[in-house]
């Protein structure tokens, strides 16, 4: 079973993602901050990370940078409330960028693509 780490500072979003992704058959752990997430990566060795950009403390982009510095080869999907960061050069280091929506089908599809569960379009 593939493991996904959901990092988001909003509790309800974490819950929503957890329930929805578990229904898809993944093992989901959550972290409310980037700092918390660092420990979970060590412990759980996730196959994929969904990462919120705007968070108190270390933000998503900084977290991603740290991840690359430590040469951890875990795919990252950036999730943000709006598409603004699409123009930010720094987000290009991520594997995918998904604008948050109540409809999670885009996120689910992207996860499947990255984990090699479907042919990418």
């Amino acid at each position, binding site marked *: 079973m593939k493991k996904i780490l959901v990092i988001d500072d*909003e509790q*309800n*979003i974490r819950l*929503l993602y957890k*329930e*929805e992704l578990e229904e898809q058959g993944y093992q989901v752990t959550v972290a409310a901050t980037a700092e918390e997430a660092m420990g979970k990566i060590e412990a759980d060795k996730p196959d994929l990370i969904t990462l919120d950009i*705007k968070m108190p403390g270390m933000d998503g982009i900084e977290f991603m*940078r740290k991840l*690359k*510095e430590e040469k951890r080869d875990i795919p990252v999907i950036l999730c943000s*409330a*709006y*598409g*603004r960061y*699409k*123009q930010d*050069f*720094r987000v*290009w*280091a991520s594997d995918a960028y998904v*604008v*948050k*929506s*109540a*409809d*999670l089908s885009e996120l689910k599809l992207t996860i499947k693509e990255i984990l090699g569960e479907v042919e990418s379009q």
Partner: protein
Amino acid sequence: MKESKQGLEIFQDIARIANSTLDLNETLEKIIEVIKSNLHIDACAIYITDENHKIFNLKAASGLPPDTAKFIQLQIGKGITGWVAQHRKTLALSDAHNDPRFVYFPEIKEENFISMLSVPILVDEQCIGVINIHNAEKRMYTDLEILIMETIASQVSGCISNAMLFSKSQMLLKEQTILYDISQAVQTSTKLEHGLWIILSGITMGEAGGFNRAMVFIINENTNTLRGFMGLGPDSSEDAFRIWTQWGRKKKNMLQWVVSEADKDEYKNSAFNQLVQNMNFPIQPGENILVETVLQKTSFNVTDAGKHPLVSDAFVHSWQINAFATVPLIAHKEVLGVIMVDNKYNNKPISNEQLRLLTRFATHAGWVIENSRLFTKLLETNRELLSTREQLVQSEKLAVLGEISAEVTHEIKNPLVSIGGFARRLENRIKILSSKYENEIELKNIADYSKIIRSEVDRLEKLLTNILDYSKAGTLQRAPCNINELMEEAIFLFKSGFYLKDIAAHLSLEKDIPLLNLDKTQFRQVLINLFYNAMESMPSGGKLTIATYPENYVGGQKVITLRIEDTGGGIPQDIYENIFNPFFTTKSTGTGLGLSISRKIIEMHGGTIRIENNIGRGVAVYLHLPLQNGPD
């Protein structure tokens, strides 16, 4: 004794006359009367020379044939009078007809006279005139008579030089007044046309310049040509007569009239003005005399156009003139144009005095042009500043709006995602429940309610996306731009950096490069990244070559290629493999994003980036940018 008393009376009379009036003709007439009534003579005549001291004109006479005599002109060296003028010596002849120097002038009816005394009028050793007395019967002139006449001649010389000085100072005064009036009038308008029209009016007014026609040509720096700007003058002889009589009547408040006429812009319709305005000559040696006036910064006074080395037959033909003058218009030592004048209708030759006055007008005209140029420039700059400021305010407003809407959206979006997300989950759960308990009508209602929540959230999400798309439109803001200019702009930012690190930048830019549709800001970012890398690779100096090439094909695509090459020794192989990886950097201060971002931007433009790593020598970066728009 009687004679000496007579001499004294004559001198007293003449001194009184000389002091009574400054009008030369009147003085001369009166002097002749005194001579005639005191000495026993039959005729007396005074000749005065012209400016050149070559021709002597009869100015005043008594006892000569009344009508024709007024127009007598004698040449220096010819006849008795000519000899006296040339040798500046008195000649007393009891039998003038038999003297070898005698030349018969029918106008004077010299057969009526036998004896003649001719005395030169001298000023500073120069002969400016001659006084002649004639007697019908043969007689000898006494020494005293000769002395009296010579003394009178010296008195007359004083009168003449006074009168000449007076008329000269009168003329200068008049010129000054007119120039002052003109400069006052010119200041009433900032419009170039009006200023120049007033000056050309001054040049052509009988009171001042008195030229028949005047025209202005102005240099166009952009096209390097001399362009006809305005012509003022009658279209025909009849027109000339009409205008001059009109001006004659306006004499008193000429100035106000000129200023008010300038406002009417009527002169624009004249055929002559249109003829001048259609003229346009390239500024190159050998073009024509107008262009030569510009190139040589000097005036020309052409008296015989057909024979002048700088005047072509075509030029004479197109203007139909024989005598004309050109003067350069100069301000701040720079030639701005040319004024040309002629006397097409009355054919008067242009004197040096006139040319001098014209030069003064030209100085004014030069300043008018310069002032108007500065004024126009000021207006333009002001307009630019205003529009730039408006743009700034506008873009600042938009930026603030964008910032606020982004914040607000973010704050709304997260709760919306939760609400909508759980509404969907709710809907799904109820669907499952409904299939279990088919008869529960309440469950169906709940399903409808959650559906409403979901669809309303969808609606709100769409709304937010639209707002954000509006404030942050698109990904690439493309506009046609010249890649050479972008290069130069970017290189400019590194000027001091290169200088400090002793890096010499060599630009070899393809001149005729087509415009490319690029996002300027992002593309500039690429150049800055590449220049920065190059600079960092050469900490102790080197050479940076920046080149653009004409269109060629890369990967089946028509592209423009740029090359940025340093002499920084190249990249070690293990590092080279990682250079495009995000966050990969060898610099303590770098983000490690420079090259990956650059590649991303180039790819967004549909182009490619290629790196040629020559270990030990340096790095060459090639950017290939397609002529057609690539994907965004």
